[in-house]
């Protein structure tokens, strides 16, 4: 279980996160939604310390990090090795083959034997449906394929939590479906995932818990069933803005 307590983060004058308190359970999928610039990506990136909040507590299993104190590089590496990250624009290593991209972390960071890492990598590539692309370079793949490689790369580290920052926002709809299928399968295997997404249908299908973030604050923290009942006017407005169905309903009125 990981938990944020009173976490604050500012960029200059802008309060990106203000008094964030929430828990991310293991073996559950938490979906973070909210308008652009709301702080949801900052929240996600704070979980693997790509961003450093100024204050607050971060509980990672038994370990507690106080953001007000300087972090040791050992702490940072430890958290990052236990959290995988998937980015909106994939960020695969272009100079390494697909297979080497997936093997890089296990071999360089976990010091696994290349032969063992290769087997794991091939299994993961099979899982995301790209075993036949093992020797291709990232630049030779479609966006959806690259994102599936990025998912395999993060899983290769055997992380306790996988963090996904708008994993399908850069993809065309037909490529998006392939990535979402992979993520749905991972969620059904009870992996621990935290996903930032704008796709409400996907959020509804995959989430065990939803966080609605706006202006750096968590305005909703609960189950998807409750969230999609539109408990507040703000959430109703947000969902209306995010879903085409609502727009076409209005057009029919």
């Amino acid at each position, binding site marked *: 279980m990981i938990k944020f307590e009173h976490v604050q983060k500012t960029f200059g004058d802008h309060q990106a996160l203000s008094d964030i308190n929430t828990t991310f359970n293991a073996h559950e999928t938490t979906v973070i939604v909210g308008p652009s610039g709301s702080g949801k990506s900052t929240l996600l990136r704070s979980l*693997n310390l*790509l961003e450093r909040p100024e204050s607050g507590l971060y509980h990672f299993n038994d370990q507690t990090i106080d953001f007000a104190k300087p972090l040791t*590089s050992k702490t940072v*590496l430890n958290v*990052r*090795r236990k*959290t*995988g*990250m998937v*980015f909106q*624009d994939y*960020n*695969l*290593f*272009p*100079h*390494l*083959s697909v297979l080497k991209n997936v093997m*890089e*972390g296990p071999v*360089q*960071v*976990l010091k696994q034997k290349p032969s063992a890492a290769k087997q794991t990598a091939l299994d993961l590539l099979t899982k995301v449906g790209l075993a036949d692309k093992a020797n*291709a*370079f*990232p*630049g*030779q793949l479609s966006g959806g394929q690259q994102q599936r490689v*990025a998912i395999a*790369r*993060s899983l290769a*580290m055997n992380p306790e939590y996988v963090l996904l920052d708008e994993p399908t926002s850069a993809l065309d709809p037909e490529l998006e479906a392939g990535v979402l299928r992979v993520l749905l399968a991972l969620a059904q295997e009870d992996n621990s995932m935290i996903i930032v997404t704008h796709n409400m249908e996907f959020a509804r299908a995959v989430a065990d818990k939803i966080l609605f973030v706006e202006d750096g604050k968590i305005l909703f923290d609960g189950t998807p069933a409750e969230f999609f009942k539109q408990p507040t006017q703000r959430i109703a407005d947000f969902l209306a803005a995010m879903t085409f169905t609502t727009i076409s309903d209005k057009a029919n009125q």
Partner: protein
Amino acid sequence: MDSIWHIIVTSAPQIAVAGLKYTIPIAIISFAIGLILAVLTALVKLSPRRGWFSILKAVAYFYVWLFRSTPLLVQLFIVYFGLPYLKIKGIWPNGIQLDPWTAGIATFSLNTGAYCAETIRAAILSIPQGQWEAAYSIGMTKTQVLRRIILPQAARVSLPPLSNSFISLVKDTSLAASITIIEMFEVSQQIAAENYQPLVMYSLVAAFYAVLCTVLSWLQGYLEKRTSRYLRPLN
């Protein structure tokens, strides 16, 4: 015409020997040392201003400024003719006396290192931030990120400008003639002084430099192809 051919045929081997003994080794050794200096300088210039790194950074900035702001010929003269007069009691009572070979390689390395440092710094900065973040996210240390992810990509980006520097350096080694190194240009000067054929001799040595630099251009093309394999679409 017969006499011109005779001059060329008899002096070309002497120039070639000077090239093999001095011009080429000086250029290669200086560029190798210069590249190491350049990578270190670029990394120091890019490091955060913290603790003793601020001192190193100041040194790196001063070094690049100094060697880019003064003529190479003047640098050679200071190192070879000037440093013997830098007498400090207890450390160098007799000044710093370098033989021409050492003085030449030291100056050429420092000079090309200053230019290449800026090339490499720019190449590192050209790699998208997302590459750092992705590498950090799989738990790599800063050193691992640089060595495994950033520098290999920066090397490809910096290949054309580094080739420029290397080609310039090959030609600039002719300045070593002024500190008594018998490299290609010095040899052709000596022969021209004997046979009174400066046009033939200097054109001939120019052709030697042109051939060397052409080979380097080919090498650059080959390396660019090799390091860009991953950018080509799958057929």
